[in-house]
C-alpha cells in the first residue's frame, strides 16, 4: 500500500456550463485526504454541480459542458477521471454519493444494500450477509433494522432511509464519499445522528459535502470551500 497522498482530489482550471450559463470558471482546488470538506455558498452557484464532477454524474445532462481536469487518488495513484482509460462504473464504485432526498430503491432493506454488490458482480450469497451487516453498522442503522431486513426500504423513516442510502454507498468501501445536503430533508434529531455518522466516517474515507447550514459546517467540517462567482474562496 502506497503512502496516503496529502490531497485526494485535484481540480485544475475547471470550466463548467449548462448551455449559456457558466457555473464554474477557472476553478482550481485541492481536497485533502481523510478529511471532511464542506462546500458552501448561496443556491445556484454550482455546489451540487461540483460534486457531480467527481463521479461524472452530470454527463447525462445534454447541455452540460466541461473543460479542465479532475484527478482523484484511486487505488494508489492520482488518475484523471475523465481520461478514456477510466471506467465509469469503477469510478462510481470508488466515489460514492448520497443525495439530498433519500432515494432507497423499491425493494427490501437487505436488497437495497446488496444492490451495489450485485452490480459489481459479487454474487456470493455467503459474503453478502456480513457485508450488509458491516455497512449497516457503519451507518448506525443495524440495531434498528436487524429484525426487519426483508421489509420494504420505503417503510423506514426519512432519517433511516438516508442512513440506508449511506450504508448502500459504504458497502462498496468507497475511497471518496460525496454528500449533497444529506440532512436538508430531515428533522433535528435525524440530522444529529447523520452528523455523528459523517464524523465517524472521516477515518475511512474522504468526504466532500454540500451544506446550506453554516452551523452544521462548523460542527462537522474540517475545511470549508465557498463558491463565489464560479471560483473558490477558502474558509
Amino acid at each position, binding site marked *: 500500500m502506497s503512502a496516503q497522498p496529502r490531497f485526494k482530489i485535484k481540480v485544475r482550471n475547471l470550466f463548467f456550463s449548462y448551455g449559456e450559463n457558466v457555473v464554474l470558471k477557472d476553478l482550481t482546488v485541492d481536497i485533502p485526504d481523510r478529511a471532511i470538506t464542506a462546500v458552501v455558498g448561496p443556491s445556484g452557484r454550482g455546489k451540487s454541480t461540483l460534486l457531480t464532477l467527481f*463521479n461524472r*454524474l452530470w454527463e*447525462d445532462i445534454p447541455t452540460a459542458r466541461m473543460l479542465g481536469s479532475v484527478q482523484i487518488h484511486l487505488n494508489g495513484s492520482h488518475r484523471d477521471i475523465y481520461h478514456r482509460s477510466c471506467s*465509469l*462504473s*469503477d*469510478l*462510481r*464504485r470508488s466515489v*460514492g*454519493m448520497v*443525495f439530498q*432526498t433519500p*432515494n*432507497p*430503491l*423499491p*425493494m*427490501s432493506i437487505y*436488497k437495497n444494500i446488496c*444492490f*451495489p454488490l*450485485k*452490480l*459489481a458482480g459479487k454474487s456470493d450469497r455467503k459474503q453478502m450477509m456480513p457485508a450488509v451487516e458491516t455497512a449497516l453498522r457503519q451507518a448506525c442503522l443495524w440495531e434498528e433494522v436487524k429484525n426487519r431486513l426483508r421489509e*420494504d426500504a420505503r417503510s423506514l423513516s426519512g432519517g433511516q432511509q438516508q442512513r440506508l*442510502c449511506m450504508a*448502500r*454507498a459504504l458497502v*462498496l468501501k468507497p475511497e471518496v464519499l460525496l454528500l449533497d445536503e444529506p440532512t436538508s430533508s430531515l428533522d433535528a434529531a435525524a440530522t444529529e445522528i447523520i452528523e455523528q455518522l459523517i464524523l465517524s466516517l472521516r477515518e475511512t474515507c474522504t468526504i466532500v459535502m454540500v451544506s446550506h447550514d453554516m452551523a452544521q459546517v462548523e460542527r462537522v467540517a474540517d475545511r470549508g470551500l465557498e463558491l463565489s462567482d464560479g471560483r473558490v474562496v477558502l474558509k
Partner: protein
Amino acid sequence: MRTERLVQRLLGLAAGCSVAVTLLIFGFMVILGLPLATGGTFFRMFTSAWLPHQGVYGIAPMVAGTLSIASLAVVFSVPVSLGCAALISVLGSGPLPALLHRLVRFMTGIPTVVYGFAGIFLLVPLVREWAGRGSGMCILSAALLLGVLIAPTMILFFSDSFASVPRTYLEAAEALGATPVQKLLHVVIPCSWRGLTSGVVLALGRAVGDTLIALMIAGNATAMPGSVLEPARTLTAHIALVVAADFDSLEFRTLFACGIILYLCTTVMVIFTRRIGAAWEQQRW
C-alpha cells in the same frame, strides 16, 4: 356548482352508455345463438370439425387457429418490442430514440390491409421456399406478420412504462456504478412489470381480434391444423367469410358462438391484467 353537477351527470351518462352497449352486444349474441343450445349442438360445436355438407358445424379448428396464431405472434413480438422499447427509453443515445419513437407511432397508423398485402408478396414466398412445401399461406406466416402488426402497441406501452420509472431510482443506480444494461435489468424492468403485462395482454387481445391478416395470409383452411406450416382459419376470419355468404341458417348461427368466445377471451384477458397487476404491486419484491 351547477355546471359541476351537470358535467358529472353527462360523464356518468356517457360511461353508462358504453357499459350498456357492451352488455347489450353480449346479450344479443347469447339470444341469437340460443337455437344452437336448444338444438343440443352447442357443446359439440367446440369439439367437432367444420363439415357443412354433413350438417356438422364445429368451430374447434377455428379456435385452435386463433389460439396458435395469436400466441405465436405474441411470442415473436415480445422480444423485439422489449428491445425496441429499451432502446427508446433507456439504452439509446443521440437522435436514435426519438426517431425510433416517431417511426413506431407512425407504424400504428398504417392500415392493416397494407401489412397483409405486403405479407402476401414478401413474406409468403419466403416461408414457402423455406418450408419447401405448401403455398406459404400458413400459421407461421400469419403469426410473423401479426407479430409485426402488434409490435407498435407493445413498444409504446413498454416504453411508456419504462419512462415512468422515477428518476430518483435511476439516479441511485447510476451513482452506484450501474451500466445502462444493469439499469435496465435491475431497476427499469422490475419497476415496470405492470405496464409490461398490460402491454402483452393488450397486444394478445389485438392479435386475437385481428381479422384481416389471418384472412389474407393464414390460408383459411377449415381442417384442424397439424403444424405451424399448415393453413388455418381464425374465429374472426371465419365470421368474415361466413357472413359474406349467408345470413340465416344453422351455419350462420354458429357465428354467434364464435362471437361469444371472442368476447369472453377479451373479458378474461382484461380481468387477468387487472389481477396480475394488483398482485404484483403488492408482493413484487
